[in-house]
C-alpha cells in the first residue's frame, strides 16, 4: 500500500451563501492517477483552488506530503511540490510559450535582483533549464510555436502550455484542471498516455478534473465524484460508472 501524499479532511469553502465546497474529505495515494468528476458548478475547481492555496478554506485541513498546508500561500505550496493548472488558461501573455515554461522552473538563481545583473552567476543554470523547458514544450507537442507569444496561440495550445509549465516545476504532485479541454479526442488520449508515462518515469502523482469520462476512465486508478460541493461517490472507474447515484446526477443534471 503506498502512503497518501495528499489528505483532505472535511474541507469547506463558501462564497457568501454558496457552499462551493461543503465538507470534502479525500486521500490521494503517492504515484496515483486519480480523477475528479462532477457536473458543472459542483465545486471541482473550487476544491483545487482551496487545496492549492488560492482560497483560504472556511473549515477543514489539507495535508500534503505529511505537512499541514491549510491556509498556506500558493507559492509556498509550490515549493513543497504541489502544483496546479488552471481551467481557464492563465498564461503570461507578454512572454513566449518557451518562456512561460522556463519561468516556472524552481529556485532560479537569476530571480534574485542582486544576482540578476551579473549574468555569469546564473547563466549556467539558465541554459540547463532552457534545455529542460524545451523538452517539455516538445513533450506537449508545442515545439512549432515555442517562440510565439503566448497570446498568439490557440486555446488548446494554451492548455498544453499550462501543462508543460506545471511539469517544468519538478512537482511531486500535479492538480490538473481539465488538461485536455478544447483538445481533440486523439490528442486528449495522447495527453493521458503521456501522463501515465510520467507516473512511471518520474513517480508523479496526478489528480485530474475531466469532463469526458470515456477518456478519463481509461487511465485513472480511482475516481471521486462531486455534486453540490460534496463527494457523493468514489471508487474504481468501473464501480463509479455503474453507481446509480452517479448516473442519476449526470443524467439529472
Amino acid at each position, binding site marked *: 500500500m503506498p502512503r497518501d501524499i495528499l489528505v483532505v479532511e472535511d474541507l469547506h469553502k463558501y462564497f457568501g451563501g454558496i457552499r462551493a465546497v461543503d465538507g470534502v474529505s479525500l486521500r490521494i495515494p503517492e504515484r496515483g492517477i486519480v480523477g475528479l468528476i462532477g457536473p458543472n458548478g459542483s465545486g471541482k475547481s473550487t476544491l483545487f483552488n482551496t487545496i492549492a492555496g488560492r482560497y483560504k478554506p472556511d473549515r477543514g485541513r489539507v495535508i500534503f506530503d505529511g505537512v499541514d498546508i491549510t491556509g498556506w500561500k500558493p507559492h509556498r505550496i509550490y515549493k513543497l511540490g504541489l502544483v*496546479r493548472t488552471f481551467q481557464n488558461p492563465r498564461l503570461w501573455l507578454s512572454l513566449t510559450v518557451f518562456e512561460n515554461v522556463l519561468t516556472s522552473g524552481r529556485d532560479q538563481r537569476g530571480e534574485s535582483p542582486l544576482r540578476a545583473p551579473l549574468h555569469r552567476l546564473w547563466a549556467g543554470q539558465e541554459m540547463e533549464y532552457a534545455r529542460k523547458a524545451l523538452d517539455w514544450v516538445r513533450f506537449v507537442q508545442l515545439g512549432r510555436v515555442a517562440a510565439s507569444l503566448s497570446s498568439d496561440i490557440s486555446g488548446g495550445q494554451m492548455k498544453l502550455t499550462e501543462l508543460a509549465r506545471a511539469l517544468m516545476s519538478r512537482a511531486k504532485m500535479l492538480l490538473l484542471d481539465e488538461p485536455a479541454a478544447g483538445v481533440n479526442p486523439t490528442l486528449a488520449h495522447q495527453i493521458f498516455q503521456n501522463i501515465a508515462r510520467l507516473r512511471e518515469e518520474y513517480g508523479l502523482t496526478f489528480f485530474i478534473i475531466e469532463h469526458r469520462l470515456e477518456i478519463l476512465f481509461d487511465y485513472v486508478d480511482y475516481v471521486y465524484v462531486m455534486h453540490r460541493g460534496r463527494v457523493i461517490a468514489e471508487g474504481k472507474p468501473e464501480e463509479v460508472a455503474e453507481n446509480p447515484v452517479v448516473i442519476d446526477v449526470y443524467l439529472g443534471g
Partner: protein
Amino acid sequence: MPVGGVVSFILAYLSVAAVYSLLSISMNIEYGWAGIPNFGKAAFIAAGGAAAAIVAAQLGPPLLLGVKGVVPGGLGFFAKYNALLNAYAAHPAATWGVLVLSCIIGGVIAMILGVLFTFPAVRLREDYLAIALLMAAQLVWIVLRVDKQIMGGTFSMVLPSPDFTPVARLLHVPDTVVKVLFLWGLVAVFLYYSEKLMNSPFGRKLRAVRDDEIAAEALGKNVPVSRLQAMMIGSFLAGVAGAIYVLVHLASVNPDYFLPDITFMILAMVLVGGVGNNWGAIAGAMLLALMDRVGYIIGSRLATEYGMLWGGYLYYIVYGLAIIIAIAFRPQGLVPEKPVKTPAWRVYIEETGETPRFLKPIWARLRSLRARRKGKKEG
C-alpha cells in the same frame, strides 16, 4: 534667435532630458516591468533632494571641508550657509564629494521609504496602491515644508553644484557641455544596469507578476516580495536621480520641486516612450522634455510679454494630452517592449537551429519584412 541662444537652448534641453531619462528609467522598472502604479514617485525623488540638502549644509562641511555644518531653519542660517558655499566654491573636489555622498544617502533613504510605503500596501489592488502611494508622497512633501531643518522649509536653498571647470578647461569647452556629457554618461550607466537587470530571470519574474499574478504565485513566485523588490530598485534609482537632479541640474532645492506633478510627468514619459522598454523610457523623456522646453519658452513669452498668465501652465496640456493619446492610440508606447533576452535563447537557437524573428538584428528583420511584402504583392 541668435546662434548662442540656440546652443544654450539645446544644452539646457539635453541637460533636462538626461535628468528625466534617469527618472523615467527608474519609473519604468516599477510601472513598465512590474506594473506598479507608483504615484508616489515624487517622494523618492525628494529623498535624493533632502539628502543633497543635508549633505551640503550639515554632513558635507565636517566631512569634506573640515568645518562645522549648519542646520537650516535657525537664526542667521543664510549668512553661515553662504560662507559654506564660498568654501565649497574654493574646493572643487568637495563639491564632487557632496554629489557622491548625496547619491548614496539619497538612494538609501529612498529605498527605505520605498519599503515603508509599499510593504503594507503591496497586497492592495492597483488603484488602492496608487492612492496610498500618492498620499504617502504628499505627506513627505508636507513634512519637508514644515520641518525647516531638512531643506529650510519653503525657501529655495542654493546647493554646491559639482564643479566641472577643471575638466572643461582641459577639454577647452564650456562647463555646460561637460555637465551635459556627465549627465548622459549617468544615463548610460542607468541604462546599462537596467538592461542587465531586466534581461534575466528576475525581469521575467516581474513580467509574470505583472501579466498574471495568480498564475505567478501558483508557479512559485512570491508576488508581494517581487513587487517590493521592484519598488526598492526603482526607489533607489529615483533617490540617486533626485540628488543628481537638484545638485547638477537645478543647483538648488525646495520642497515644491517634489509635487506630484513630477510623478505624472515621468509617468507620461514612460507611457509615451515604451512601457517596459528601457530605451523607450529614454525616448519618451527626450520627446516630452523637448515639448516641455518649447512650451516653457512660448508660455513664458505669453505670460511676461502679453500678460497671459496661463502660458505658465502650458506643460499641463503637453503632459495631459501625451498621456491620453498614448493610452488611447498606442498603449505599448513608441518603442514597444522586447522579449527578455537571456542565454536561454542561445540554447533555443542551438537546439532548434532557427533564430526567432525578434532576436535577429534589426536590418535582417527589415529585409524579411520587405521580402514578405513583395511576396504578398506578387501572390
